[in-house]
């Protein structure tokens, strides 16, 4: 009976090792958002140069919307851009943009002029106030907001054709039914 006691440390170590090994496979950058099912925190951003209206949390009421945090400096945003253009051309869902941490107020508008502007409204976010409201750590990040202005889904990183078809678009269609 006492012999079993000797194996206890080994058993504890094994359990610990299993947990730690499982932890190795996880991406520490992939944080669960605490904002899911919470209303969008209040924020107000000025328009980007050349536009008259900025973006605030009040613009995200009344319909299901997609909020996208991007920056002209961000490679993955460039890759994501074509898909966003396609979504906006087909009028699938209004996309609201947060133009995050541009080095100056010219590069963002220039980027959108060159590649096309898929956003209904864009807020200029040089001081990260919009990004912090959404708990963003890196661009691009996208959020699905329901018609009551509640955050229902977060996607970290670029939305690929695949994620759009299999995850984001079904969620949007689902929320519209509610």
């Amino acid at each position: 009976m006492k012999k079993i006691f000797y194996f206890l440390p080994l058993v504890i170590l094994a359990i610990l090792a299993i947990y730690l090994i499982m932890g190795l496979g996880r991406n520490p950058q992939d944080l669960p958002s605490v904002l899911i099912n919470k209303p969008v925190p209040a924020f107000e951003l000025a328009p980007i140069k050349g536009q008259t209206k900025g973006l605030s949390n009040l613009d995200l009421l009344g319909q299901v919307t997609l909020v996208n945090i991007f920056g002209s400096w961000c490679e993955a945003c460039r890759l994501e851009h074509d898909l966003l253009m396609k979504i906006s051309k087909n009028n699938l869902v209004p996309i609201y943009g947060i133009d995050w941490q541009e080095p100056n107020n010219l590069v963002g508008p220039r980027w959108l002029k060159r590649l096309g502007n898929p956003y209904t409204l864009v807020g200029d976010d040089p001081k990260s106030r919009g990004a912090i409201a959404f708990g963003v750590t890196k661009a691009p990040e996208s959020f699905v907001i329901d018609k009551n202005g509640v955050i229902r889904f977060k996607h970290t990183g670029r939305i690929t054709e695949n994620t759009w078809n299999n995850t984001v678009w079904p969620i949007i269609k689902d929320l519209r039914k509610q």
Partner: protein
Amino acid sequence: MTPAFFRSSCLVIALLILFPFNTNAVDPSEILRNPTLEKRARHISKDLRCLVCQNQSIDDSDAPLARDLRLLVRERLIQGDTDNEVFDYVVSRYGDFVLLRPPVKAVTAILWLGPAIFVLIGFIGLLRYFRRQTADENSEDQNK
């Protein structure tokens, strides 16, 4: 090595030890005029994780997001927030992960109590081991 060179080298080393380089990332332009508020801001910043470079506090990090969070902390303090209100503000957006000192909760209990439990287990084991040894010695004495 000339004695003069040796002496000046010693002086430089001594000065470096006495006045180490400032290792925080706070830019002089960020510093608040009110020294008490600034002190509180520094204190809060040291406990908030930089989410870009996750093992640094926002006080240490040069990442742009860390800078913007430092400025936000200072702005909230000027608006009259207590330290806890500032922490709550950031935690409500980024979650507990942003705190470098995880809060004591049911899910973090093992984190806080774990080490103490292991020390206790080790101590009990040690106690049993010594008890048995003295018992063995006693029985050996009796055999003589």
